[in-house]
């Protein structure tokens, strides 16, 4: 303890080194957050040319207006299916790839590929796949069954397409994390299970899933964040929130209110809600990630 460094003896020098980072954080993070919070209590016209305090008015509208209720509903449906679908498929594919003897690297590479694309590219690919007139999917359905559904015109189908695009884009991420977790599972436990004569299903349910639980928890948080915050381009490119707000996710609604309808106050209130959600999820993420490092069974 008596080896005191020049830094600990000189607080000011330490602060000086922190200054650039602090400045950037204040200018680009803390400042805007406080400003957003302030704006969310105001009725703002013309991007801030005029402001009027309205207390919790923006929040009240958010929770009690039918338009926004549809938005929350769409966000919930989308999040649920994207997270469960993405993680379920990711786990399934990871188990399959893990079980393959030869060419594991090959499968791994191609399954992770979509993750390397930007969400905008995923959006465009799905837009063209499911286009009513020129889409490959409808060309196939037409040839096989003589049907060509209006994918983007029906609320349920449009939601399916958007969820599909979001899952497809993110599946590589889940896959690679599950693969890593699978390859570091304790061999003795697996061996013991096999010796005891546990079948595939039994091993999956009783051994793999419990051992993978910490990873699942971590991925759940990451996927939730993805489904809530990172899907803007997918919605923007494929449906623009339509048909009749069926795919109006919160992140898109906030953009639309803020920059198309110039309802800055309402957009700010939505950002604050999202900020709260992201803060909560980040907290959970840090906690679960710390735990996830020690894989179960061998603590």
């Amino acid at each position, binding site marked *: 303890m008596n080896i005191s460094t020049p830094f600990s003896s000189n607080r000011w020098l330490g602060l000086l080194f922190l200054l650039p980072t602090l400045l950037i954080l204040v200018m680009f993070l803390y400042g805007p957050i406080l400003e957003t919070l302030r704006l969310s209590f105001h009725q703002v*016209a013309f991007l801030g*040319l005029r402001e009027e305090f309205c207390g919790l008015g923006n929040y009240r509208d958010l929770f009690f207006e039918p338009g926004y209720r549809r938005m929350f509903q769409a966000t919930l449906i989308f999040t649920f299916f994207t997270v469960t679908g993405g993680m379920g498929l990711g786990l399934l594919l990871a188990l399959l790839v893990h079980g393959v003897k030869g060419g594991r690297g090959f499968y791994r590479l191609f399954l992770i590929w979509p993750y390397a694309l930007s969400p905008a590219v995923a959006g465009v690919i799905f837009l063209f796949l499911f286009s009513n*007139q020129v889409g490959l999917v409808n060309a196939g359905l037409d040839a096989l069954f003589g049907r060509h559904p209006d994918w983007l*015109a029906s609320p349920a189908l449009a939601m399916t397409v958007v969820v599909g695009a979001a899952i497809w884009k993110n599946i590589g991420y889940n896959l690679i994390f599950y693969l890593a977790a699978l390859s570091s599972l304790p061999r003795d436990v697996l061996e013991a299970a096999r010796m005891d004569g546990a079948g595939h299903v039994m091993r999956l349910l009783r051994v793999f899933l419990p051992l993978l639980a910490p990873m699942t928890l971590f991925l759940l948080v990451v996927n939730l964040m993805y489904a809530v915050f990172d899907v803007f381009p997918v919605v923007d490119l494929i449906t623009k929130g339509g048909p009749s707000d069926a795919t109006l996710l919160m992140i898109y609604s906030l953009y639309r209110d803020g920059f198309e309808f110039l309802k800055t106050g309402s957009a700010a209130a939505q950002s604050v809600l999202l900020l709260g959600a992201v803060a909560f999820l980040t907290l959970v993420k840090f906690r679960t990630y710390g735990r996830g490092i020690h894989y179960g069974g061998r603590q």
Partner: protein
Amino acid sequence: MVKWARAACSIVLGLVMAGSALAAAPKKVEVTFWHAMGGGNIAFIERMVADFNFTHPQIEVKAEYKGSYRDTLNATILAHRQKKSPHMVHIFEVGTQMALDSGIFTPFAQGLEASALRDLEDYIPPVANYYTINGQFNSIPWNSSNPVLYYNKDIFRKAGLDPENPPKTYGEIMKAAEQIVRSKAAVKGITWPLHSWFVEQWISMQGALLANNENGRAGRATETHLDSPAMMRTATWWKELYDKGLYAYSGKPEDWDGANKLFVSGQTGMLITSTSDVTFHQAAAFENGYALGTGPLPAPDGMERNGVVVGGASIWMTRDKSPEEMEAARTFLLWLTNTENGVRWHKGTGYFPVRTSSCDVVKNQGWFEKNPAYTAAFEQLLSTRVNRASQGALLGPFPEIRTIITDAMQQILSGTPVEKALKEADTRADKALQDYNRSVK
């Protein structure tokens, strides 16, 4: 910290400005112009601006493309907050009330000499009408358009319809579409983009209003009329077309390209879309080897045609500029839309000349004999009655109300009863209007 930076900046800027003032003795008046015309039009505008700068050595206009109409308006408001707004801004018709309320613009006609005011009377009445606010010429109309019917004469012939006599009413459209589909001349009868713009046009065609206080022209609009009989008539007809499999929906709202594709590829015999696409459709018809016809926007049966709302966009001048700069901006805007340039603009882009004199020049040059597809558009424009309905509504949150109308139409096509969907849309639009009105008071 911020203050120091500002002080330093202003000192540097001051030095630079002083330097440049010394260097160029006879100072040019510099004015900036932000517009939202993308694609090939950017180069076209650059050329026009270069011509202006060449012929007006004392003025230097700088034109800048700022993205979509919404982006341009947002950028202007932000620039105004930093006291750096451009002198002239290109604003879409539905942004009119918002631009007025922002208080950062000045009416064009204000402070104009009598001779220049007389010159303004040359703008085509239904066009000038939209941009006349509180009796004053408010902004310079530039790219104007309205919807017309395009039809494929070959498909008409195959279906046994008269290729020289396009359907003009809701009923006639229904019959023609039925005949096209029944005779298998095309898969569907008709298409148009699912966009609120068409609904607005059909309201005007029936002489009805979209909002109270005379469409928001006599006073601020406080209520919309989205469940009016005129709306019901249009929505019911549209739904019937769709339910009978006669109307082709591209599957996405506001999908102008999708509707064009359906028509050009021969999947529908008719299309309703903007007059600004005439040039495109003439070329497409030539490339794909079919004969193109045009007709007026269909109106409900047994009703007198009131005409269309001439929308598009106009150019606004910002306030708080020096008199020389204002004068330079006015000179540029009047030059940009003068008789000759109106003709050049029309032939180069397909948008309409906004002056009567330009129309006359185009007519005298035999333009319509060579390009008959333009006729319907011109006739519809010139025969439009000038009244509150065709003047178009002034609504603050018009972009939002457009989304509400588009949503309602989507719901109606996918099965929601017409009355229910329109009632709900009306309530939503009223709420949007009230929220907006409260925020600008």
